[in-house]
């Protein structure tokens, strides 16, 4: 079961966090869930569902070119 986590970064921080499913940059809070043995971050719980139903079976784990 996932949970909402606040990024809790300083106001001057410019780092970017991407949703493991859709690839959207996450502004402040992310949904963290354990999927396939890995702790992944998502922009919303529905992306966790989509990741489990679509990316994981296709072997398309989060990645960037």
């Amino acid at each position, binding site marked *: 079961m996932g949970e909402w986590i606040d990024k809790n970064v300083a106001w001057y921080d410019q780092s970017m966090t991407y949703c493991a499913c859709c*690839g959207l*940059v996450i502004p402040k809070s992310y949904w963290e869930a354990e999927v396939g043995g890995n702790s992944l971050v998502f922009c919303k719980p529905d992306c966790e569902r989509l990741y489990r139903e679509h990316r994981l079976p296709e072997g398309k784990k989060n990645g960037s070119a």
Partner: protein
Amino acid sequence: MEKIDSVTLSVINNALINACREMGTAMMRTSYSPIFNEGLDFSCIIFNPQAEMIGQAEFCPTMLGSAQYAVKWTIEELGLDSFGPGDVIIHNDPYRGQCHMPEHLVLKPVFHGDELRCFVGNIAHLGEIGGMAPGSFAADATEVYQEGLRLPPVKIMQRGEYVKDVWRIILTNHRTPKTSWGDLHAMIGSLNIAETRMHELLDRYGPEMFASAGEQLLDYSERWMRSEISEIPNGVYRFEDCMEDDGVTDQPVWMRLKLIVKDDEIIADWTDSDPQSLGPVNATFVVTAAATYSAVLHVTNKDIPVNSGCYRPIRLITNPGTLVNVRHPGPSVGGNTETHPHLQNVVMAALSQAVPERAAAAEAGTACNFLFGGVHPETGEYYTNYHFDGGGWGATAEHDGNSVMCPVNGNCRNTPAEVLETKYPFLTLEYSLRPDSGGDGKFRGGLGSKRVLRVVGPEITVSALLDRTRTHPWGLFGGGQGESGSLLVKKKGDSEFRTFSEVYGTVSATKFTRIALKEGDEVVISSPGGGGYGPPAERPAEEVADDVRQGLISAEAARASYGYES
């Protein structure tokens, strides 16, 4: 709150839409730049406090699809508690939910009493924001820092007063600060109009009903969209297309789609797309999202209220660092006008495999971006302008494609020759339809245009970003492809037009920055035609005859494509 009756819900929905239309009229009438008062390159929107779009009107699909991301980011980054009456936030950061750097969101919270009840917003393409090219379309940029001044969400007005430090930073970094000043005031003025209308709605219906109406409209749109998607046959549909080059290298970059229709949901999987390009044809995530939404809206019922609800059943999967989801600090200015229509056309082509009777052939797929600037010979003042030209749209199962229309992301208007000549040192030698540029078919693709300009001032610095000059808009189900576009130049004294690569040595003939044209030089901008639909042999003879009579196709093309003898 109990369910609102359909009539009241309709009245509130239309009131929201009309408020947005009124914002647009104000923007058109009070803005300084032709891109706004002629081109209408902006979108006016209304959001609930949860950053869901509840009101919009007939503006630009790219902004209407991306706005919810930009607004959500703004609200989350700053926090709802940070907004006060009279505040206006400005934001153009492509990595924070914007389409590309020139697109600026201004957002105003609307308070009723002490409570924040909604947001009103205006996303508009400011024609000059600094960066390495006048007109801020740096076609050979390799990072976002070359594209102009990047603003995270910051307050530009606080409690009705100017946040002068922010204004000074903006105006110092824009080449035409007077124009930016005027255009930003037009944008903020439109927000004030919407705020008044929202107060009227809140007074009339009360905040509880207002909030409930927004939620019910969102759910209604979602239910309707899901119902529409359920009518599309389940399946996996694939298509791909490329940007012919990226302005920095002469290599194509590919977008690849696997579209999954499953019951009442659509999943657009773009993960097989190429790595992001060096040059600025990358799309941000929100551009890819907006393009996907747009295509689905094109093949579903046109009466679905377009709000965040109708987007809920349309899901995207992308990898950061690819053409369809650029990773910082990759450039992306061309992604919104050039890559977006390609993406939309790809989704449409995939959907054509499922619902052929609803799909359209490919359209021109480029805004023929032509940017220029210099010192005006009559006023002595520096000017810049972002000029774009429409192209042909793809034909459908029921009608020919429209001619010389803004690409599908824009819904903008072409600039009249008179306006160009009045404001800038150009003489229009020709502005015409391009005969034979539409793909042949039972239904013909729309035509592109040809615009010939002569420089009548001492010097103009030009930049350009066009695509579909070597590739073609495809046809569907036997329809022919549309003609490619082109951008050519003839220096004073030369006998013929040639490409910018041939004359000036640019890497790309159609994506470059800062070429200085002199008095007497001429430029030809030719936009592509749209693809045709269905076998040409099935086009009625009287339609072909009419096309020939109107000069839309030549007698030779009528004979070769349709077997028609006049």
